[in-house]
């Protein structure tokens, strides 16, 4: 079959279901009850099915109490049918009815509410008959939901509960065995047995065993559940009914699918309609009476441990020869048949020994107590006899078992060992247990440093000031370092940097020459200072300070043209005064001095 055809068939199926759902709206609603049999054998169970037809709008049913039966809800079941385009749907609620007594009983009418309407089922009559043929202690019972013959199922599925004796004592632990016998019936999903534990407690079931066994010459598959039963009250106790639930596999015997061919003749749909169905089944046992006797008060020892059964008691102490301060391990063991968990182990108390807390555990069918004791004196010390009392069920009386005494030789410590720090913690020094108090510390009576509230970032003016000062100083120092380093590494820079300072220093020496008749010397000095300055500033060799060269450099550096002109005039005046002996007045010398200062300032500003 091609994929396209499969998809087409699925599409048709979906359309059919949707159409059916639409049709369901107009369906008639009814409610009824049905029993799988009107006669039930005591120890078996009947199946009550409450079915709502024509609607699914029912989540649960409140089943009224049914006289003579215990009802157990099995689960819901939904059926949808489409036959020749006719749609019908039903929702069933299945209950297992376990009979509690023989007689004729009425299953009362059950009412349900669906979409505001009330529907009621009819009452049913059912008869519970005694299971005269069933063997004592067993009551095979099975409920077949497929309406098979109850007796026929009972022949194939049986459950038997057994205990080794019919009379026991309170707190005596006895084995309980539940066996499920199955023959020629496929049952899956078998649950652990459920049993009302009124008047007794059950231990956890062991892993079930499975084997074959012949009953009345017929082979049965057997599933065995083992546990231990401990009565908690005296008197008559009913063990059971126990119930095991499972699923019965029933093959659908459909030769043709109900949709009558067409697309549903496909293998996919054939397999679907012929599959196995799981039907819930519950197997119950008959109640099993057990007589529980109280423990006698006569002869009950004061140190009765609570142990009931057939128990053994043993005590060991080791080592029996030791040095002072060394420990002795006392070990008590209770074993045998009985409820070991309920057994109270004997207490060891003796002023001659320091006893540590015992370690008690139950494992491998015995209860052990291990306790470390340390002799407090040296010499031969006797661990007194230790007694254990329990109720012996085989003898029907209390029994006290005594072990010991044990003689312990405690050697004194070696000389000097008493004062050794090593092993001090192990020495039997009795320290008083100290319970320290616990409370808050008292208030402080000194306010401490009261500071202005700050935010989390902690703005702090002092820190900011310190940082600013620090950064400035750091920057200055670093700048000085760089400057000094350049001065030493770059001679041109050093000369250029020194040019103005030297010029100014030398100009101070000219001031005394600014007097009548001193023009020649004044201008000679001025010219020399100017040339020296220009040589250093522009890094030119001596004698290369002709005005044309200097003018060109100053123009490039964008020195004020007026200052360049002033410079030219100053040099011409100086030459005239020096070489032409021109008379120059003192004010002219002073003006020349100031012009010189202005020119130097202008050059410094423009030429870095």
């Amino acid at each position: 079959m091609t994929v396209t055809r499969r998809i087409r068939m699925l599409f048709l199926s979906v359309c059919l279901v949707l159409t059916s759902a639409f049709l369901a709206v107009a369906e008639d609603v009814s409610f009824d009850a049905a029993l799988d049999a009107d006669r039930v054998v005591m120890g078996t169970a009947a199946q009550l099915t409450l079915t709502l037809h024509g609607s699914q709008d029912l989540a649960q049913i409140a089943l009224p109490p049914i006289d003579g039966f215990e009802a157990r809800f099995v689960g819901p079941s939904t059926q949808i049918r489409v036959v020749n385009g006719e749609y019908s749907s039903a929702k069933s609620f299945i209950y297992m009815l376990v009979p509690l007594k023989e007689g004729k009983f009425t299953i009362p009418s059950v009412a349900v509410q669906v979409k505001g309407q009330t529907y009621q089922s009819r009452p049913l009559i059912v008869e519970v008959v005694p299971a005269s043929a069933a063997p004592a202690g067993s009551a095979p019972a099975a409920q077949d939901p497929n309406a098979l013959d109850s007796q026929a199922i009972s022949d194939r599925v049986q459950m038997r509960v057994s205990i080794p004796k019919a009379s026991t004592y309170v707190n005596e632990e006895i084995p309980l065995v539940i066996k499920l016998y199955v023959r020629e019936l496929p049952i899956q999903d078998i649950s652990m047995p459920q049993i009302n534990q009124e008047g007794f407690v059950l231990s956890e079931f062991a892993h079930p065993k499975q084997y074959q066994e012949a009953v009345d010459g017929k082979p049965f598959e057997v599933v065995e559940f083992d546990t231990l039963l401990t009565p908690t009250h005296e008197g008559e106790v009913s063990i059971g009914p126990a119930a095991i639930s499972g699923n019965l596999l029933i093959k659908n015997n459909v030769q043709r699918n109900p949709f009558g061919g067409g697309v549903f003749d496909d293998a996919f749909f054939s397999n679907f309609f012929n599959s196995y169905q799981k039907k819930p089944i519950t197997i119950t046992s008959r109640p099993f009476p057990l007589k529980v006797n109280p423990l006698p008060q006569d002869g009950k020892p004061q140190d009765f441990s609570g142990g009931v059964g057939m128990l053994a008691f043993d005590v060991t102490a080791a080592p029996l020869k030791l040095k002072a301060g060394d420990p002795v391990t006392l070990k008590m063991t209770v074993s045998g048949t009985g409820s070991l968990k309920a057994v109270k182990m004997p207490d060891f108390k003796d002023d001659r020994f320091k006893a540590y807390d015992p370690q008690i555990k139950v494992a491998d069918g015995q209860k052990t107590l291990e306790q470390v004791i340390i002799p407090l004196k040296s010499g031969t010390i006797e661990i007194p006899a230790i007694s254990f009392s329990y109720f012996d069920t085989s003898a029907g009386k209390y029994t006290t078992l005594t072990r010991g005494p044990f003689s312990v030789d405690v050697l004194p410590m070696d000389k000097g060992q008493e004062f050794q720090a090593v092993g001090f913690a192990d020495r039997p020094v009795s320290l008083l247990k100290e319970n320290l108090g616990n409370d808050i510390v008292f208030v402080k009576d000194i306010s401490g440093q009261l500071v202005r509230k700050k935010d989390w970032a902690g703005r702090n003016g002092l820190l900011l000031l310190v940082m600013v000062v620090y950064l400035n100083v750091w920057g200055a120092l670093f700048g000085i370092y760089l400057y000094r380093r350049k001065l030493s590494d770059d001679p041109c820079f050093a000369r250029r940097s020194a040019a103005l300072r030297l010029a100014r220093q030398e100009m101070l020496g000219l001031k005394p020459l600014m007097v009548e008749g001193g023009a020649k010397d004044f201008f000679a000095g001025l010219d020399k200072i100017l040339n020296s300055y220009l040589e250093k500033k522009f890094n030119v060799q001596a004698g290369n300070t002709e005005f044309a060269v200097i003018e060109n450099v100053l123009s490039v550096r964008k020195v004020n043209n007026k200052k360049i002109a002033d410079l030219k005039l100053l040099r011409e005046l100086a030459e005239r005064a020096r070489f032409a002996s021109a008379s120059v007045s003192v004010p002219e010398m002073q003006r020349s001095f100031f012009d010189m200062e202005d020119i130097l300032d202008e050059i410094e500003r423009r030429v870095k």
Partner: protein
Amino acid sequence: MRRAAGLSFLIGILLTASAFAGHPEYLFAQAVAKYQQADYSAAVELNERLLKETGVESAAVYFNLGNSYFKQSKLGPAMLNYLRAQRLAPRDADIKANLVFSRQAVEQYESEKQQKEVSRWVAPFMSLSVGEFKWLTAFVWMLTGLIFLGLLYGGWPMKRVLLFTGASLVACIYVTAAFISYLSDNHGRSVAIKPADARFEPSEQATVYFKVPEGAEIKALHSNGDWLKVQRTDGRTGWVPSAAVGEI
């Protein structure tokens, strides 16, 4: 004459008392006295006045205020003030002891198992207050700068100068990263001063996500009107009324 002298003496006392009445040290001493008289509500009032009216704070004030609240069984405000005290004096043994004792009384839910660990950057500096940490960071930077200059002026070769300065810079970066992490960890640190429901949205109608018990230490993330988005130690976040939370 004698009456006039007595009157002027009384006026003097009153003036002196009124001058000291608003002084923080005076309020502090008064609060301690009230505490010793087991008048815890008055002690709370005086300490709160001190903080509010004078605008100053100290670890001792918060510590005493925490004690006063604790004695009134107000665990949330007590925890808040102990933590505020610890912020200012992280190495104070008394504060630490009372915090440990109070924390035992704070309910903790089983689901809140995952406690936020202290960032690895911050762990070595946990015993420092924010102010101390700030000075330490500044000092490390200054020291690095001075080392650099010292080596330069000392005439060391530039390679060595850069090597030593680089090592110092690594230390600076580490301390700075730790400081930033410290601030980040402590930013929004808060305490539930009363029990509150943390909800999925800032609304009374929103679904409750988890319960914040009184005294629980949480982190305030951001606010929306009268609601505060908080994060508890296991990382879960929810909205609680702002009035239920006090920031450390």
